[in-house]
């Protein structure tokens, strides 16, 4: 199998990491080599010391893109989960990485504020956190993402199914809806033929 990169972009709390991990599990089950680059983790090592200015954010995204490209060209599936708010840098990565699938985790600020698992939106809205994307820092929505998942409305399963389906349609992974899922009659016929020829 060829490598490819799935790039999850979207506001904080929009479900990027959750979906990335779900997709990772499915691809591992299908026998692919997968690596997840979660921006929260990357900021503790590869991008340690970088802040949240536009320049630092861009450097962070370029670094993740660089690693994704290395993995992709070595036939690994790289999954990046990063807010990646600026379109120009996302597009730089798209150009750099040959097999690139962008997943936009769309969710309204209202829904995110209500969800606010980490309590970050509440703090940002009160001004306790500065440069918070979607509150006082911009997020440029993608206009060419391969997949848009509306995590405010869709269930996790629906979003994952949408992503997997897209990967199948784009021929990055084999289709399984009709893979070895022969109907009962078909399976019986295959078994009978294999028996007739002494194969089973």
């Amino acid at each position, binding site marked *: *199998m060829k490598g490819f990169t799935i790039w999850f972009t979207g506001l904080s709390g929009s479900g990027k990491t959750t979906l990335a991990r779900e997709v990772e599990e499915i691809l591992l089950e299908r026998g692919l080599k997968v690596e997840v680059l979660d921006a929260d983790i990357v900021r503790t090592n590869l991008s340690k010391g970088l802040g949240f200015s536009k320049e630092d954010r861009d450097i962070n995204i370029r670094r993740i893109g660089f690693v994704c490209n290395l993995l992709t060209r070595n036939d690994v599936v790289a999954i990046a989960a990063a807010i990646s708010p600026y379109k120009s840098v996302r597009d730089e990565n798209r150009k750099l990485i040959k097999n690139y699938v962008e997943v936009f985790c769309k969710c309204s600020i209202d829904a995110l504020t209500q969800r606010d698992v980490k309590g970050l939106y509440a703090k940002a809205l009160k001004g306790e956190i500065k440069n918070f994307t979607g509150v006082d820092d911009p997020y440029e929505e993608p206009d060419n993402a391969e997949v848009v998942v509306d995590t405010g409305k869709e269930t996790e399963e629906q979003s994952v199914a949408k992503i997997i389906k897209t990967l199948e349609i784009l021929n990055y992974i084999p289709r399984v809806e009709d893979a070895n899922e022969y109907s009962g009659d078909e399976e019986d016929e295959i078994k009978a033929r294999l028996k*007739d020829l002494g194969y089973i």
Partner: protein
Amino acid sequence: MAFFFKKKKKKRCCVVGLDGVPFTLLEVLTRNGVMPFMEKLKRDGNLRSMTVTLPEISAVSWSSFMTGTNPGTHGIFGFMDLKPQTYSLTFPSYNDLKAPAIWDNLKEIGKRSVVINQPSTYPARPINGVLISGFVAIDIKKAVYPASLVPQLQELGYKIDIDTMKAREDKDFLIKELYSTLAGRSKALDLLWGNEDWDYFEVVVTGTDRLHHYLWDALGDNSHKYHQAFLDYYNKVDSFVESTYKRFLDVAGDGEEGSEFLLLSDHGFTGIEKEINLNCWLAKEGYLSYMKDSPDSVADISDSAKAFVLDPGRIYINYKGKYPKGCVESAEGESIMREIKEKLEKVEFEGKKVIQNVYRKEEIYSGPYLDRAADMVALSYPGFDLKGSVKKDVVFDKTVLQGMHTWDDAFFWSFGRKKDNLNITDISQIIIDNFKS
């Protein structure tokens, strides 16, 4: 003033696959006049024996041919396999093939393919060209890409395979079916040869394999009722190769543009002296027991079973944590495998050794799907056909089947000598390299 240019013929490749045809049999049939055209090809080109991947069955061999990789990379280990972490059986389809096929790679360099009756490509999926799946295809509507060709093929009387159930019992019917399916392949070839602008054309004849399974004993016995019918069918196959080759010369010229005509089989064949029921052997040696007296499948093994077998000779260690009733600790697996190998290699029938070798998966496979392989694969001596049935209570058996596969007696023919010690995994690269050169 008009200038006339001779149009340069484009580089093409045509492959004719003859399922289950042994190199050693071609040597005989080209000498005794049954295959006069093959005899000419033998004189003009290079006919050689070829090894295949293990186990030496069509599903695995053709997948190795198509992808140029071993089962550890293409992921097909048999006609059936275990679903991960279970004893449930699954029948791998084309969608389980994990490596790109020849036509997928050719598409990348802008080449168009027509592929007729390729085993292990069901259900057919889109390619740059035409794909008609072969064995184990069931429904022609799912076996043809593009689907718009289905009505035309049906009109031509194209059949995917012979009716094996009836052919097994009625040999006259078998012969009739072999001819009618070959006629169907010829008609499909007629239809697609000129109508499609192809670079790569492939057609596989599976009738040879079917003939061997049921009538191998007729080959060496002049008094056998079907001896002549056996030879006549080969003569017909020879004519099929000849007509395909002549057509190829028409479109590809004399080869100066680098066009290639290739012939190959996916395994050899030999007669069956005895079938060896390996699960029965494991049970007698104390490695396998069942939860009930008459087991239906490997799912009925007991939780103290140490090993079990899937057809033809794939030996699985019942590891704890890997299977629901697994009882073998990983540290213990090594010694069990060593014991089984040593004992199996000593098994004899009427003074003759039965097993040539028992390979560890790491010895014969490599790639990302190595973990899915059986822990060991047994290779028998010719004449001893390995079986994985759980229903047999005798180790040595004989059924209606007459022929079995061999791994080191497949053949490959080309004009030039391509490579020494050919294995079926080499062919796909030969084809692709030729297009790139």
